[in-house]
């Protein structure tokens, strides 16, 4: 195969065609399958070149407008209902139109952040290990591990009896729990698995508040992550979470540092950088469309992702992002908040160079698009 690819690359070079890697691979595959000779290959490359050049976007084409239409039209067919469960029945994940809006708006706080945590090779089938990690990641409160809980108004204390089998079952470390309890509460007496807490002031109100506080004390879990669901997906164990904290999870031992992801694009940007965020935008947008049974060519989504990530940080499409930061005053004013932009431009004395589409439509000139994007250059007579 490698030889064929090299051979095809050579022919392609000779024909002065600029083919992509995947196209060369496809041609090489066909050559092997059909057992083509050199002459046939020459002809094939010639024909592919012709078809490829015809299919390519021409200079001056309004790709942005086409992308907007191509994403917008299927968008109208999306359901407004958000109650979809992405594979995992217990976890609710925002999908459909609300999710798509969330992606292009580059929301800082998305409504249902979730992670898919994979494991390194040696732990993939180790259920025991995965369950231990899941309990380290997932949030557990005191309430989850108590056997008996009562508030004693006569003695003015809260007595908690911990359920040792349950702690064992959740694979938590008893010492860690005690440490956390001691850190959070000063007046606490520990007698094996029986803890008794005293309020700072002996009043019924304080006692009740204390009881609630004890019950809600978090004894394990990663920040920002709530419930976890463990699932077996094709011979390996995967943890899905409610809430997301990519940075902390990637630092954990045994976690696959290659495939573990989150659906929070800003978190991806923070932890893995702008290029990863771009990939994440494409992936999330496409997944959302696919889930609704709609197909949009990736190139449109790639263009959107490229625009959103061009400045080095993820920008939204719209008033506070790309449209609101255009260089031209008239283009900005024609989008939203007309008065604001015109006023500010006049205060600052902004100059509009009339290089864009909108500006030229406003003043009634030919627009720099398609055939309008070329000009005539003349050589001066000496």
């Amino acid at each position, binding site marked *: 195969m490698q030889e064929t690819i090299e051979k095809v690359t050579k022919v392609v070079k000779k024909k002065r065609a600029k083919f*992509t*890697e*995947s*196209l060369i*691979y496809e041609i090489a595959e066909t050559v092997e399958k059909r057992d083509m000779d050199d002459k046939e290959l020459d002809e094939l490359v010639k024909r592919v070149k012709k078809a490829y050049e015809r299919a390519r976007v021409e200079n001056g084409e309004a790709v942005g407008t086409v992308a907007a239409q191509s994403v917008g039209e299927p968008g109208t067919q999306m359901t407004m209902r958000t109650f979809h469960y992405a594979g995992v029945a217990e976890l609710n994940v925002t999908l459909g139109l609300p999710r798509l809006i969330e992606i292009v708006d580059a929301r800082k706080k998305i409504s249902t952040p979730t992670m898919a945590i994979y494991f390194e090779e040696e732990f993939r089938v180790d259920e025991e290990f995965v369950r231990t990690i899941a309990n380290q990641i997932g949030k557990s409160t005191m309430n989850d591990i108590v056997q008996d809980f009562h508030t004693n108004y006569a003695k003015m204390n809260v007595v908690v009896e911990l359920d040792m089998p349950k702690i064992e079952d959740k694979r938590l470390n008893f010492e860690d729990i005690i440490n956390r309890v001691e850190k959070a509460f000063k007046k606490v007496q520990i007698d094996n698995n029986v803890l008794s807490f005293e309020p700072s002031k002996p009043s019924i109100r304080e006692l009740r508040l204390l009881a609630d506080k004890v019950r809600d004390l978090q004894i394990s879990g990663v920040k920002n992550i709530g419930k976890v669901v463990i699932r077996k997906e094709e011979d390996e164990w995967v943890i899905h979470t409610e809430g997301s904290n990519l940075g902390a999870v*990637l*630092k954990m031992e045994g976690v696959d*540092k*290659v*495939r573990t*992801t989150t659906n929070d694009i800003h978190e*991806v940007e*923070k*932890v*893995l*950088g*702008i*290029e*990863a965020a771009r*990939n*994440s935008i*494409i*992936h999330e947008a496409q997944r959302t469309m696919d889930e609704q049974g709609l197909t949009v060519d*990736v*190139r449109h989504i*790639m263009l959107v992702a*490229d625009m959103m*990530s*061009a*400045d*080095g*940080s993820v920008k939204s499409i719209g008033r506070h992002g790309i449209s609101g930061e255009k260089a031209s005053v008239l283009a900005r004013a024609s989008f939203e908040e007309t008065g604001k932009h015109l006023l500010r431009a006049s205060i600052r004395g902004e100059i509009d160079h009339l290089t864009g589409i909108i500006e030229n439509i406003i003043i009634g000139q030919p627009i720099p698009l398609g055939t309008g994007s070329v000009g005539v250059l003349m050589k001066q007579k000496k």
Partner: protein
Amino acid sequence: MKKDILKHELVPDHVILSESEVTKVLKKIEAHAEQLPKINSDDPVAKSIGAKAGDVLEITRKSATAGKFITYRLVQD
């Protein structure tokens, strides 16, 4: 840990270009460095490969349509 993020499937390969490579690339794509897409100097990937403001990074993306796609980003403050 620092190097770990470079292995993540979402992160494409980033390479710092030398000065002569930058000139060659800019000539080929007929653009000025400022016209390239940007990457912040405090971007986790830029930091871990030690890129400084003013550098141009060559990014080799895995593309769904082209197989492999090479693009460039200018490191900015």
